[in-house]
């Protein structure tokens, strides 16, 4: 059994359906065992369900209601018919009662066995889903590690040191960039970002506007950060700016670090 999710938004992200791999499996294996988290997930589902209200209004045609009520009426009638044909058998005197005395315990035992098997099956399905998710996550990490190794070993990979701009938070970031592979990796550290701000990393292309390469939430050590450049794009420089939390489509804030590709 895994522990409580560390961040409260994890429940909303799960309800939204964006989590995958290990993150998704962690919630799925924990929530059935924890009433507190099950309640938090129910609240998150409720918040996310409110997004339904943002859909443009489309009134259903009256025919749907008519079809539904016909379907409901037909099912109610057939259930009534089943009940009436069952009645004589239930009132079937001595033999009926004797059969009932045998069949009822058998039925109860079967029901218990079915519930047990169903529960066990659900548990095994969850475990299988968790293992599959683990495997997918490991495969993804292995692919990233392979790409990173290829990039670092390639002879035509260049190293770009990003210089801190005057008056800006301190940092030491380096980008290893391979134009032929269209990939770059950034690592180093940067001072924590001011309140309500995030660092945003940019690829400055030879032609056209800068392209976002990711948002660095709070600063601190930056672990190798892989970037895949849009096809055909050659980088002229890499830069980091301060932007509103979550990042912007184009740079709007001050330049914190910049380094030209030599």
């Amino acid at each position, binding site marked *: 059994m895994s522990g409580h999710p560390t961040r409260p938004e994890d429940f909303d992200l799960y309800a939204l359906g964006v989590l995958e791999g290990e993150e998704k499996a962690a919630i799925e294996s924990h929530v059935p065992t924890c009433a507190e988290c099950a309640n938090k997930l129910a609240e998150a589902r409720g918040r996310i369900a*409110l997004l339904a209200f943002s859909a443009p209004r489309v009134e259903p045609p009256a025919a749907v209601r008519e079809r539904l009520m016909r379907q409901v009426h037909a099912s109610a009638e057939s259930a009534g018919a089943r009940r009436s044909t069952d009645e004589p058998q239930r009132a079937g005197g001595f033999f009926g009662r004797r059969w009932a005395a045998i069949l009822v315990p058998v039925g109860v035992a079967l029901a218990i066995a079915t519930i047990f098997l169903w529960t066990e099956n659900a548990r095994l399905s969850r475990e299988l889903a968790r293992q599959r998710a683990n495997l997918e996550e490991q495969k993804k990490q292995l692919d990233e590690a392979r790409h990173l190794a290829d990039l670092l070993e390639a002879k035509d990979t260049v190293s770009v040191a990003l210089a801190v701009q005057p008056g800006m938070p301190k940092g030491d970031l380096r980008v290893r960039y391979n134009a032929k592979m269209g990939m770059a990796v950034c690592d180093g550290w940067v001072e924590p970002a001011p309140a309500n701000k995030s660092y945003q990393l940019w690829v400055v292309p030879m032609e056209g506007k800068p392209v976002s390469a990711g948002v660095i939430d709070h600063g601190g050590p930056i672990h190798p950060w892989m970037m895949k450049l849009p096809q055909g794009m050659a980088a002229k420089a890499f830069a980091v700016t301060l932007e509103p939390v979550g990042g912007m489509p184009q740079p709007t804030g001050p330049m914190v670090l910049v380094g030209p590709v030599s």
Partner: protein
Amino acid sequence: MRASDAALIQKIVQRDESALAALYDRYASLLSSLLNRILRDTQASEEILQDVFYQLWRNAAQFDPARGSLPGWLAVIARNRAISRLRRHNPSEGEELLETTVIVPANLENALAQQQLLGRVKGALENLSSEQRAAIELAYFEGLTHSEIASKTGDPLGTVKTRIRSAVESLKRNLLS
């Protein structure tokens, strides 16, 4: 006097067809809008709309109004079915009933409350940046995961994750305020 959702559910359990019709009149428009937005297919949307209410008719006894909100539950079921239709996957009914206790932070049992909530949801979405809003819409209406959104938009996975997390934080703040 207008009956509450809980009272209508109780009547459905007793096989009162008019109670189902009343709940349909209350929430069909919300679900129809959601389904059409996801599927962009009128016929498929109508099929799922009918199916969701028929499921309510058959399984009303298993729905406990004290543990959750009916419109929230209906919206979750409708969205799951529509996304599954898009992805050609069939969730089992049992899976849906067990896993979808939904607590909505508002009472949606009358049209005025729904109208007020619509304003709040729109306001909360307008507070997001256009990229955050687009990412939330890809997730909610198209059922895409983090990596599928990154692959569709061409943005790095880390950016997509940060963008959606901060959007969700913002929505949570604004919807609860």
